């Protein structure tokens, strides 16, 4: 056994920093209520997410519909396409368009709910 082993080891003890006040984290809902910069960032990011989702949903439905008269107007071969007795135009715009928009709408509702749930978890700190 050497002497050095008997000596208590030097230990560094760090006390709490005095220059920062310890307090429970502020709920984000308060930040939003007080319209602090943090609160505004949270709110704007929610609005932006929901707006982008909404615009994507609209594009998903409207872009193919706008393409229909262009395709059928400029590409005559499309006009003679038939599925059974029904011309393609009528099959798409008379029947298929309705289940399709219902499907897109269902997808939108799921995504919008998910965005809101994420926002709720975030601001309520769960």
């Amino acid at each position, binding site marked *: 056994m050497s002497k050095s082993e008997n000596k208590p080891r030097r230990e560094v003890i760090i006390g709490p920093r005095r220059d920062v006040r310890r307090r429970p984290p502020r709920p984000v809902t308060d930040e939003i209520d007080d319209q602090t910069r943090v609160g505004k960032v949270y709110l704007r990011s929610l609005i932006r997410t929901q707006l982008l989702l909404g615009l994507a949903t609209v594009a998903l439905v409207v872009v193919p519909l706008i393409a229909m008269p262009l395709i*059928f107007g400029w590409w005559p071969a499309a006009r003679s396409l038939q599925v059974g007795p029904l011309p393609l*135009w009528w099959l798409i715009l008379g029947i298929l368009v*309705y289940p399709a*928009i*219902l499907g897109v*709408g269902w997808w939108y509702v799921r995504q919008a709910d998910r965005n809101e749930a994420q926002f709720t978890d975030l601001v309520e700190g769960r």
Partner: protein
Amino acid sequence: MNAPAALGMVLTVIVTIGLAAYSSRLARTTGDFYVASRSVPSWWNASAIAGEYLSAASFLGVAGLIMVGGADAVWFPVGYAVGYVLLLALVAAPLRRSGAYTLPDFCEARLRSRHVRLIASALVVLIGWLYVLPQLQGAGLALQILLDTPVWVGGMLVSLTVLVVIVGGGMRSVTLVQGFQYWLKVVAIMVPVLFLLAAWRADSGPSTLTETPPTFHGTTTVKVESDIEVTVTDPVRVLADGSVDGNVIDGPVLWGEGNHRVGSRTTLTFPDGAAVPHLSSTPAQTGRDWGQTLQGGQEHALYRTFALMFALFLGTMGLPHVLVRFYTNPDGRAARRTALVVIGLVGLFYLAPSVYGMLGRLYTPELLMTGRTDAVVLLLPQALVGGWSGEWLTALVAAGAAAAFLATATGLTVTVAGVLSQDVVGRWISNPIVSFRVAAAAAVLVPLLLGLTAESLPLARAVSLAFAVAAATFSPLLLLGIWWRRLTDVGAAAGLIVGGVTASAAIVISTLVPSLTGWPSALLAQPAAWAMPAAFATMVVVSRRSSHRLRPGVDRIMIRLHTPESVGVQRTWIARGQR
């Protein structure tokens, strides 16, 4: 006189009044009504919205337009349904969270301005009347065709029924009535489709996409109700009773190629297989061209197609009677679910009109000659199925048509009356119930009188004008009001005025000057495609220039519109210093 049809219509009216009276006993005050309706499940609330939405234009007009316009007319039902996708994705939940009951309420809540509120109220009344007018004309047409009454009787009866329901049945025609009327309409249009398709197959399923224009199916007697001019392509021997080419005739006439005038109250009998003379204003089309897009020979057909899509896609969110119903959802999430179910319900309904339009060209082609294609849904069951089952199917479609006039006319009248009583009549009459009744009478009378004088347009086209005004005014207001915090009261007012004035002026000019051709005709007939962007741009530019008018509470309103109700944040604006 068609007894089953009369029975169908009378039953619909009785059940409507009965349900309204029953539900008004359940909810004695408006407060009761709101509370009660908030416990209504999404799908029933959605039925009510769809019930109010599917008007005479949908029930009768869409099939009629498809019968004439073919591939290009499918945009009407598609547009009426797709409008709800935009409503769902961009408006439904925030609008519900705004707590606004009507569009003027939304303006006041979002912009805190009485002036914008008044402009919005004026627009609600304008759009409401534009939309009620074709309902009354449709009722007149339906009763004239089925019961042989003068054309004003139908509109008068619908107006009276609406007044009885509103005044007797309480402040609002209730969710129960409107929901019931949706299901009645779906059954009334779908069940005959099954019979029609079966009868068509039994007739060896002839194709609509023929190489020739439509021909008469069997010896056909046509009753001409108003003066018309028709174009004959193949010489035909007609048995006439009435006035033809200015001569009073009772017996056979040989019609050569060219135009012929037929006076009102004339009966013409055509032989089986003869080519159908077309109204001179709408050229005859082969079945093949009818089934193809952009073959109608209209000038700037592509612009008209896109402008129509624009009006219908964006107009739906601006229809005042539709938006009112979103308030009855418990929260924003439920509002989205309701809008989604509406897409399903409305889509289910719109599967049917194309079938009527296609089969109408084969079995009731005389409507192409008289121009009364709006009647195809009412006449096709008798023409194709025939016999007693044809009569009962006619009763069913008559009941559905009655439900269509009543549901939409009631919903619109209530909305218009609410606005009139709050912002106009209420200034002179302080008793809210009396003022609402006076307003309801005014809301019914004006379109009724207009309907007696105005030229009758095809139903679905007349309704698309209301959509165009809604698209040019409320749609930019809602889109910017919900998603752009910097919209100011001045910007909103300027945009509403620009959109409202340009769209209505275009409609008035194109109705009064039908002789326009080329681009002016196309642009004025379908104004939404330019009036909506103009209103949108006006709102943005004027708001940017008046940003000093932004209220300090605007962020609080954005919080309210966009945060889910479950998050515990302050949703009402409290002025600084009060906290």
